[in-house]
């Protein structure tokens, strides 16, 4: 059997106004982060439904990160505050079910924080890679 190097698959939901712009800035400054990170643009982090997070894990993601404007800076004034509550509750529940807490993260990245974006993604990808493949919230049907 061929041994394939394990590469984690990471889905990053980024809000259009801050974090997606932060990711663009990381690109402008050529700040590298693993290609395993794939970004999905949402208007605001509060658009991210827990169902999307679970869906990503089902389909084979090894980590899911949600990035939004810093609290207080939300383009829509309060969206990220809701994100913060929802995801705190959701992630705590996933942990309660024995799913590794390092697989999920919420990070606030502003449009000026290209470096933070890249650093966050490097760190997250590294932590997720250390855990190995997502086995606890996987759907084997999608892995064949």
């Amino acid at each position, binding site marked *: 059997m061929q041994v394939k190097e394990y590469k984690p698959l990471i889905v990053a939901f980024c809000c259009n106004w801050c974090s997606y712009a932060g990711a663009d800035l990381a690109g402008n400054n050529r700040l590298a982060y693993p290609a395993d990170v794939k970004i999905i643009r949402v208007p605001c982090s509060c658009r991210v439904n827990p169902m999307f997070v679970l869906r990503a894990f089902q*389909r*084979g993601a090894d980590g899911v990160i949600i990035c939004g404007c810093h609290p207080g800076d939300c383009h829509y004034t309060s969206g990220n505050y809701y994100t913060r509550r929802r995801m705190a509750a959701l992630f705590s529940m996933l942990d309660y079910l024995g799913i590794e807490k390092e697989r999920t993260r919420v990070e606030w990245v502003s449009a000026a924080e290209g470096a933070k974006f890249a650093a966050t993604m490097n760190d997250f990808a590294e932590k997720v890679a250390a855990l190995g493949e997502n086995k606890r919230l996987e759907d084997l*049907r*999608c892995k*064949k």
Partner: protein
Amino acid sequence: MRKCSLDSMNSVFAEIAKAATLYIPADRTDGAAVYTKWEEGVVWSNALNTVRSPKDFFFPQMENLMEFKTQGKNIEIIDTRSETEDFVVFGVRACDVKSFEILDRVFLSEPVDSYYAARRAHGVIISLACTRPSETCFCGTFGINPAEPAGDISVWKTETEVFFRSNTEKGAALMQKLEALTEECTEEAVDAQKEKISAVMKKLPLADLTTEGFGGGKTKELFDNPAWDELSQTCLGCGTCTFVCPTCQCYDIKDFNTGKGVIRYRCWDSCMYSEFTRMAHGNNRNSQKERFRQRFMHKLVYYPENNDGLFSCVGCGRCLAKCPISMNIVKVMKKIGGNNK
């Protein structure tokens, strides 16, 4: 008829498990009995019956039918069936044994359901006579004798001994393997127990429940009975009754897109669900009353109409025990039909 001591049953299980996968009722961590794959250490439950019925062995809740793979714009169809292995289900009560006959009439009549048929062909059923029926039992209503369970092999259990009688070729073949562990005895050995059970059967609270007023041809008479409103008024529309029922056989076929291909699978469906038999125009039974009525009309009228008068209920009592609101077929039968006179 052959017998062995109750203590030697573990050896009997071990012997059966040598040639085929054996499932016996065993107590789960939550206290309920379930069919469990036998291996050393699995203890035969004393419970009257399992929470889920043994229909799962032949008609599982979920099964993949086939797969599609797309390559560019081409589609490849893959048959995912693997040869079914031989298996033995031990401890099936008379009511549940009867349920296989009801399922067979659906799945084995033309066009034969090959998935079901393969499992039936590979499965051996060892039934078990009841000793202590519950107040929720009403198998007698459907002419089932819990002291005379059918199946490939019938088993009776007493305080100290276990008796075996093979009924079919498959059963006889299996009994042959147990020759060394069992000894010959006469049929009379279990007579006393049978009598005792018949006496209990008469005392059961539902002993006088009859199927009078139901059966083929009763559709017009029963369909618009005003009692359906009252009976269904607090039904929650969950699928508990259908999923614990040994005779409910409805399923849905769905496609699951894995991203790499499509798995076509079937899974149980429940006529109590709002999405049941949903078609392009929507659902043809829109109210819970209609869905509720469908379930009981099917068991008590439509099925017998198409199957020589055979009712598709075996009186196992699972729905009586598990319905969240305690609404069930007994209440329906008592409210409408002959029992209400």
